[in-house]
């Protein structure tokens, strides 16, 4: 039973109108919001066709909310899936468009390309553009730089301009501009440059590509939903009736179009509750998201402004450290423009007698490593520390957070080598990747029925499912090695009359049961051979029905079938190995794919005690662990707008003090919002502002990292990869170190 504390109870008194809630990390906002939703369902005057709409930021939160609300509603004896709808903003936009696609200029059968396909399209268009426009490199590169060299380097020139165009397109869509709108503005203001020209042309061709595929991308969803809502007042009215209450979580990360969409949906008289923490706004770089939207809302007339300042998540030492970061930023940050990066209220511990008391404090709650270390050294120290700590705390949860994904992968490799159990929050779950891998291998095997290597690999993967004992695994390995050596696969699958399928194989000793399984599997392969004449989706379903039994696995295979059917539409020339490659991207974790396993629907760190969780700071948002390692807190990953800082967005090969992303996006924004100051700003102005914005966001990212820890926190940093230009400890970390050292000094 949920027992609200005083501030939470005050929020639960809400019955109608507008309310804004500023909630500190660990204040129980999800719980409070879920309970509020269930209260409105139970006590409100909802009609049968009305719902409470809960809007969240990420998919995992959807399931979290659904589980909680259905629990509360069920406990009250009502149907647990009626009267509410939980959606991400994109999910909500999709719902809206699906109801009236005509108003968005779509037919009912539109599809949505995922990020991989969208990135691929932009990359192809950009590459072609780059080939035809040598002036682009002339404009952007330092004169001393050799284009051939940057073309070859990892994260080099091609990737930079592709990302530039991705950001351009995404921003243009956020500002609801079609390529033609931008061209008109360019003409109107007589303002153009090579970056704008590239952005518009790539955008134009990209849109043409999407139209040809009858598809949208994720950024289109919100702007088209907004267009639909704006187009037909009667439809808007119907939705306002359907959703008399809108409860919004993580409101600090709303972009301008997202906020506009919800504002329109709620209407002037509607009931809207927005919960968020401006200090946890970490999605602002090169987007139109801004915690300012939430701050302004809290000050709006007619809005009841509330706060949830108590948090029972961390012990006092960690809370104090987080509060010290707020205090230092607001009062002592050397750059005055950055002092409002973090906002009050400070986090308060829960009151005495609270059902969620703060964990007991201890003298080693925090450790900040001061010494210079190289990245490899930093990883080695952290891994060794974990290796010592983990066996002593098998019932505790632990996370290692890195600012950048590839650094996280290096940490994961080191943990793997040290044989430390690990869980990764990756693009797709392990079970999804496993299923994708099996289907991929089967496709390769049936594409090449006489290739003993492909066939033995597929057979091995399938026979190993459900086997745990080492000796059984070994038995399967021996058997499939024999198949790999077979030089007449046609005899294995289709022996001529009078011969056995096993005749041509040098079969090792194997149990009857395993041989029976192999023979059964052989029969399945024969069936699948004939099924290769079917369209790819039907082939996948045939294979899946023969291989998988659990509903979640079959549903996942169904989703693969639809994905590949879509690929077949896009690429009519695709053959089986090409489809296998698509699946390989999922099994190899290159491509994000949402499956149906619990890992994907809801990730709960407490299910992974005794294992190490490795992820980026961003992905850790909303989660908490007993012990947290924050790595790489140097002035490259956490710059502070100082002379000596370097910035990720400013590549070494680009002309001095010029961040092309910032420059072109500011110009674009200026054009589309008729902001003369942005349009006429001299080169470099946007770069300077971007540095400030980035530094500000990184302060909040550090705050998010600190507040993930319940009982202990370790912070380390490294000198970076450039030996001649070593990084230093991030400025805010220096301040935290000073605070921590002084508070640890013996009295």
């Amino acid at each position, binding site marked *: 039973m949920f027992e609200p504390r005083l501030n939470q109870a005050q929020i639960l008194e809400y019955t109608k109108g507008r309310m804004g809630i500023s909630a500190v990390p660990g204040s129980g906002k999800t719980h409070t919001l879920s309970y509020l939703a269930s209260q409105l369902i139970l006590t409100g005057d909802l009609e049968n066709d009305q719902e409470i709409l809960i809007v969240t930021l990420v998919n995992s939160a959807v399931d979290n909310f659904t589980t909680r609300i259905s629990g509360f509603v069920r406990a009250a004896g009502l149907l647990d899936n009626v009267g509410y709808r939980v959606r991400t903003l994109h999910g909500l936009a999709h719902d809206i468009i699906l109801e009236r696609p005509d108003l968005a*200029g*779509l*037919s009912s059968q539109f599809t949505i390309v995922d990020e991989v396909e969208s990135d691929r399209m932009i990359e192809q268009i950009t590459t072609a553009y780059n080939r035809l426009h040598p002036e682009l490199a002339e404009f952007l590169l330092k004169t001393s730089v050799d284009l051939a060299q940057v073309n070859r380097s990892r994260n080099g020139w091609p990737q930079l301009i592709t990302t530039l165009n991705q950001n351009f397109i995404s921003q243009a869509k956020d500002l609801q501009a079609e390529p033609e709108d931008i061209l008109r503005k360019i003409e109107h203001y007589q303002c153009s440059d090579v970056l704008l020209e590239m952005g518009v042309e790539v955008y134009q061709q990209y849109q043409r590509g999407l139209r040809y595929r009858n598809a949208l991308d994720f950024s289109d969803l919100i702007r088209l939903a907004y267009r639909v809502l704006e187009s037909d007042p009667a*439809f808007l009215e119907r939705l306002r009736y359907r959703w008399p209450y809108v409860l919004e979580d993580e409101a600090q990360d709303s972009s301008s179009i997202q906020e506009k969409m919800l504002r329109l949906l709620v209407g002037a008289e509607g009931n809207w509750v927005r919960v968020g923490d401006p200090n946890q706004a970490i999605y602002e770089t090169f987007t139109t998201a801004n915690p300012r939207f939430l701050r302004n809302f809290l000050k709006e007339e007619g809005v009841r402004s509330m706060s949830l300042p108590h948090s029972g998540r961390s012990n006092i030492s960690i809370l104090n450290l987080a509060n010290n970061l707020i205090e230092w930023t607001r009062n002592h940050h050397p750059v005055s423009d950055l002092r409002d990066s973090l906002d009050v209220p400070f986090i308060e511990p829960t009151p005495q007698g609270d059902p969620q008391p703060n964990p007991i404090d201890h003298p080693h709650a925090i450790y900040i490593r001061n010494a210079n270390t190289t990245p490899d050294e930093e990883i080695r120290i952290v891994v060794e520390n974990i290796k010592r700590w983990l066996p002593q705390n098998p019932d505790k949860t632990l996370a290692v957070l890195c600012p950048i994904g590839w650094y996280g992968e290096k940490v994961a490799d080191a943990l793997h080598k040290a044989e430390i159990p690990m869980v990764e929050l990756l693009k797709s779950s392990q079970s999804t990747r496993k299923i994708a891998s099996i289907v991929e291998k089967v496709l390769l095997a049936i594409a090449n029925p006489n290739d003993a290597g492909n066939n033995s690999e597929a057979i091995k993967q399938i026979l190993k499912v459900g086997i745990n004992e080492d000796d059984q695994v070994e038995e399967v390995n021996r058997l499939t090695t024999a198949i790999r050596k077979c030089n007449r696969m046609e005899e294995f699958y289709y022996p001529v009359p009078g011969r056995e399928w096993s005749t041509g194989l040098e079969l090792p000793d194997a149990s009857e049961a395993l041989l029976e399984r192999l023979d059964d599997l052989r029969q399945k392969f024969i069936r699948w*051979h004939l099924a*290769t004449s079917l369209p790819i989706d039907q082939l996948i379903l045939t294979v899946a029905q023969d291989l998988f039994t659990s509903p979640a696995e079959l549903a996942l295979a169904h989703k693969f079938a639809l994905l590949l059917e879509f690929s077949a539409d896009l690429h009519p020339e695709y053959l089986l190995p090409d489809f296998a490659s698509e699946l390989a991207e999922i099994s190899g974790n290159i491509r994000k794919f949402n499956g149906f396993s619990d890992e994907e629907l809801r990730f709960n760190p407490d299910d992974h005690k005794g294992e190490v969780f490795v992820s980026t700071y961003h992905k850790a948002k909303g989660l908490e662990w007993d012990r947290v390692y924050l790595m790489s807190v140097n002035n490259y990953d956490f710059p502070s707008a100082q002379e000596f800082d370097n910035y990720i967005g400013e590549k070494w090969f680009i002309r001095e003090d010029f961040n092309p992303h910032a420059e072109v996006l500011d110009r674009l924004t200026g054009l589309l919002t008729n902001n003369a100051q942005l349009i006429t700003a001299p080169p470099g102005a946007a770069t300077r502002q971007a540095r400030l914005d980035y530094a500000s966001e990184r302060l909040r990212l550090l705050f998010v990292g600190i507040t993930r820890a319940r009982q202990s926190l370790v912070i380390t940093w490294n000198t970076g990869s450039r030996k001649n230009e070593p990084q230093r400890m991030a400025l805010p970390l220096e301040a935290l170190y000073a605070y921590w050292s002084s508070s640890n000094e013996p009295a």
Partner: protein
Amino acid sequence: MQDGMPAVVLTNDQTTVINSPMSGSLLLKGQAGTGKSTCAALRLRYLIESGAAGDSILVLVPQRSLAAPYYAQVHAADFPAGGQPSLLTFNGLSQRMIALFWPLINTSAGFTHTKAPFKFLTIESAQYYLAKIVEPVLQQGYFESLTIDPNRLFSQILDNLNKSAIVGFPPSEIAARLSNAWIGKPTQLKIYQQAEECAIRFRQFCLEHNYLDFSLQLSVFKEHIWPSLICKEFIYKNYQHLIYDNIEEDYPVAHDFVSDLLPGLTSALLIQDTGGGYRSFLGADPSSAARLGNICKGVYTLKDSFVKSPAIDNLENALDESIRTHRQPGGDHGKFSDSFSISSFRFYPEVIDWVISKIQELLTDNTILPGEIAVLTPFLSDALRFSFASRMDAVKIPFTTHRPSRSLYDEPAVRTVLTLARIAHPSWCLLPGSQEVRMALALAIQELDYARADLLSRTLYQRGNRDWSLNAFDTLKIDMQERITYHAGQQYEILRNWLFENKESGTSELDHWLSRLYGEVLSQPGFGFHTDYDAAAAIAHLIDSCRKFRNIYTPDNLSVPGNPGKEYVQVLEHGILAAQSVASQSRQSASNAVFLGPAFSFLMRNQPVSYQFWVDIGSQGWWSRLEQPLTQPYVLSRNWDPSKLWTDVEEYEINQQSLARLTSGLLRRCRDHVYMCSVAYNERGLEERGQLLLALQNIQRIKARQSEADNV
């Protein structure tokens, strides 16, 4: 009478209608399942038995599938001998009349070559020619703000033309009508204008080439044939009696024609399903049909259903009220507890398994025929159709599916013969890939398994050889010949020789070439399609489609001889042509098979069943119409007030009406029980809560109350 159905016992009301005088016009009304069509089919027999000449009777239906009861009657062993009645759609009648009176009307109708013959375009060939008109303007930037698949673009432009013909307004009004009702962004207005421009260009193209697509057929009939006295006289001379079934599913121009025709006929029986109008989105107009009913001399209403049980009847009323009022139905609807059940699932495959096991259960004691069961969905994706089909095959449940949009090219037999055709015509430069060749050989040669077909295609097929790509079997090393087997090698040689001998000979008449390939090789013993009747049906359909294409084909450049064979293969592969259901008809006779298909197809089939399965009741597809950004069936209808905007109020209302009509239509065609399935994640893994689910929640509440009362 349907196969396997009990003998028809007629009510007094039915007998009165059948035996009504052989003069004057009569409107027969009633809900589905009240025995109207049975009655009308027996009226046909009565007319002939009473002395009317068979060929003086015209039976009109809006769609060919709705003529089934009349065909059954005419083909019955004891049907009176003599002239046969004409069983036609309005379009079929138009075609006959155009064929007869072409020389008389071609000048006035605006055709350029009045001395030359004409050709009717099928939907496919119309799309083919329209594509040639639209593709160049797409390059110029037409339809830029629209996200749409090109084939759908073509079909919607044609749809606008067809709407103009069936409603009766000139194509030059298409854009204005659509624009006046448009409420969204103004960019759409340009799109409408461009769609109209393409439609008019296509019309002009047809007039210049003596082509008649569906819309031009109707327009020519309406404006040039029917007004002509000679034509009128011809019709009256030929037809004295009319039976016109399902008038509510037909177009306003058909109603106009019949309205004109009626006074000159000896007798007429018009039949109206009072809850029908399912084809509204295709242009059917129940209110226009009602106007036609008003001019009949007599009206007769059949009230009692032969189909639905009282519980289903109660359910229909309660659900109808729930949908129309959005509230829990008030009043006493009577008990319906046993008429339906709702089962909930998390994932889609669970639903499929459950439905199959339930069907197996129903069929166990052999008292229920498979034809008494229908599995209905709002849409039927290929993947879903296949999932159901393969599971039903596995447990040997006979079934029939209807999904008209399945492409002919997806049939393995069709792919096989086309792959062989591409090999035999190297000059087309369309040589297939080795995987296609592997599959074609594995299917074409009976004893060649997949792995050996792989060896064969890898060793003997040389795509790089532009002159001839299939090498002889004896060019292989002995070891490889042994692996593939000599017997399979012999069959391969027969096929290869045939292809070589007939190399390049199918360019102008590919249909003949395919027909010979099938007849002389592939259907012979030792070859893959020897006893495969599904393959035979698919290839027959292919040959027919190919012949029709050849008949209308005109090369782009008239000075260069055309290549219809190559052109046909290419357009088929690009999905423009032959999107028609093939296998479904050949699989099972309807009465012996479970029906699997979209609810709309089931309604148009008009055969009641005892058990229905409604799959995924949460889907929005039960409620919302198919959105087509270039056209709008309601705005282009005769009932639309051109001064109004099409807003969500209209959209919502029309969808609610369609849902109510759909569910009533289904329940009126159900005798005993509806199994409804709700699923948390739809086929694409999304959560949906459509209006049908919301309406059923109300019904579920009443059902719970009824059960409680029973238990007290």
